């Protein structure tokens, strides 16, 4: 009898599940194609107008490891590292946002809102000003530490009181912490004109400063963090049902949440160290992906990575075309896209007050 029920249930569910899965696989395929298409656009279009032939020549020269001769080929070779960085950084930010939203069960959790960017900024700036740091490793280490502390602080402040983290509490805690930390950043920088100039450029997030050296340091770290996040996806599914249910399902809530939080912070902090603050990617992308794929984190996480990559590559490309002959940094465009999306989320979410 029990077996019968089980069989019946499996039979009834199987077609539906298959349909859902094939649809999600389709989404992943579309995502991968979109990343490739965005990358092609990013190589083809930029501040300078370059013909398709020159782009092909430039790519060939790059593949053969030659030094590019003509202007078009140079432009293409400049676009290659930034395209790669945009893919990597976008994927990391999208994934980071998805992880943070999952573990805080809060729709507006985002590296920018959690104060991660400013925490990274403060520590990097202090490192430059007081300890004369210069290597990528030192930048990265300090950015990670600052981000983690800021994120922890904002999350703690935002989760005080009954009801846990509400969107408003989190946003306000983030805004206040960001304001305080940016004031401290200014206080450290003001007496140091050189550091101030550097910071002004870092403060506008973008992938224009892409260099293979710093990417080589960051990418392995991002890869490890991404793998940890993916491995915890089903645990995060359980967390979405509430801590009590998760415990009932045999999930070790504390370690799962802590590990996922570390992965989420590492993902966005490493990106912040290399690109500067890029806001709202982590906020927007997971929401769109959740709408498309349903609530299963095992699909939301990889789709958010793909979506983040597409968004950042397109934002960077659009910024170069709009800003030609200069560029509008990707962080500006994502902020412009992100604010309306936040408005939509705020309108859809039932406000619980503080």
């Amino acid at each position, binding site marked *: 009898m029990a077996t019968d029920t089980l069989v019946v249930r499996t039979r009834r569910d199987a077609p539906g599940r298959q349909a859902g899965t094939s649809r999600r696989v389709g989404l992943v395929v579309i995502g991968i194609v979109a990343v490739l298409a965005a990358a092609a656009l990013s190589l083809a279009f930029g501040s300078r107008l370059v013909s398709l032939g020159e782009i092909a020549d430039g790519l060939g020269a790059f593949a053969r490891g030659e030094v590019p001769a003509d202007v078009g080929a140079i432009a293409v070779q400049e676009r290659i590292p930034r395209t790669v960085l945009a893919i990597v950084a976008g994927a990391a930010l999208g994934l980071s946002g998805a992880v943070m939203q999952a573990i805080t069960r809060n729709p507006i959790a985002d590296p920018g809102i959690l104060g991660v960017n400013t925490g990274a900024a403060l520590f990097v700036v202090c490192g430059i000003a007081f300890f004369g740091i210069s290597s990528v490793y030192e930048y990265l280490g300090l950015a990670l530490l600052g981000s983690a502390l800021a994120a922890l602080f904002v999350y703690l402040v935002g989760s005080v*009181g009954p009801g846990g983290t509400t969107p408003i509490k989190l946003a306000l805690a983030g805004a206040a912490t960001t304001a305080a930390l940016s004031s401290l950043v*200014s206080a450290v920088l003001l007496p140091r004109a050189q550091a101030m100039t550097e910071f002004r450029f870092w403060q506008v997030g973008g992938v224009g400063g892409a260099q293979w050296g710093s990417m080589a340091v960051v990418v392995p770290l991002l890869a490890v963090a991404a793998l940890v996040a993916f491995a915890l996806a089903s645990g995060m599914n359980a967390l979405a049902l509430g801590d009590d249910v998760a415990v009932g399902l045999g999930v070790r809530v504390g370690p799962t949440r802590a590990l996922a939080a570390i992965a989420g912070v590492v993902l966005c902090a490493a990106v912040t160290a290399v690109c500067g603050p890029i806001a709202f990617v982590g906020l927007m992308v997971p929401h769109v992906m959740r709408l498309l794929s349903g609530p299963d984190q095992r699909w939301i996480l990889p789709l958010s990575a793909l979506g983040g990559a597409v968004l950042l590559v397109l934002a960077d490309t659009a910024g170069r075309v709009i800003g030609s002959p200069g560029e509008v940094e990707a962080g500006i465009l994502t902020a412009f896209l992100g604010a309306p999306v936040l408005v939509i989320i705020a309108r859809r979410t039932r406000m619980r*007050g503080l």
Partner: protein
Amino acid sequence: MTAAVLTAPLDAIRVGRRARVRRRTIGISVLAVLLVALLAGEILLGRTIYPLSEVLAVMAGQDVPGASFTVGQLRIPRAVTGALGGIAFGIAGSTFQTLLRNPLASPDVIGITSGASAAAVFSLVVLHLSGGLTTLIALAVGIATAVVIYAASRGGDATGGRLILIGIGIGAMLEAVVSYLIQRAAEWDVAVAMRWLTGSLNGSRMEDLPPLVGAVIILVPVVLLLSRDLDALALGDASATALGVRVDRTRILLIVCAVALACFATATTGPIAFVAFLAGPIAGRIVGAGSSLVVPSALVGACLVLGADLLGQFAFDTKFPVGVITGILGAPYLIYLLIRTSRRGGSA
């Protein structure tokens, strides 16, 4: 017997009211004295301390070698700008907080000053305008920002968190614009850039003051005239209507005045962090509940700006713009307020 029973509570009310009035009078007097002291500090302190007679002579319009420039061209404009900016931010903040019945809903927290700030930088860096026109553009964009935030948060509970959340998001967008424009304005020196990131009184000039002076002279009396209605609105729309307040008209008028004050101040000094947010609650603590906050919050705002500016100028080896100091001091208070409100389980 009945008369005695009736008069006893009335006496108590009367005593209570008298105590309130006394507290308010004392509080406002202390604030006024503090403001005068801070103004004196702004004008008298500096690398060179001029004799009081010279300072007074400069203020009387006489030409004194040295002091005329340092005091007349640098310190007095700085002091006046700081005081007026603080008054404007203070009144704007407390008016918003009272109208929306929410201590977190001040124009700096919900992104309105970011709109004015972005517009001012755009006007200076891209359009190469300055002076009155910049102020007008900042005002227009600040009001537009307020309208957008209000419109986007409509449909829910108007006093609630949605407005704050949306304001923070739109503020973040506008701050990205400010960073971008400042980064583009490479030839600008750091101090000018800082003004639009955090707010500063550095380089205040008499010729930049007329818009702010005009705004304060015209708008503050309007808010004062409406302050009784504002307090009625704080009780809720129904109570205010019952008290004879024309709710919609009064609210729109007050919001326009508060937005305009915040925008004029931002266009002159940059978005001095948290002054608008802090002035109302501090004023409330000083004069006590149930008392109009317009005048005390104006005084508190001015004292905050001038006090923080003096700290920034003289307390450290480096001179810090006023916004850096208010940012560092103000944010912990916002976090404290957030934690306290959350603990009580109250709604924002």
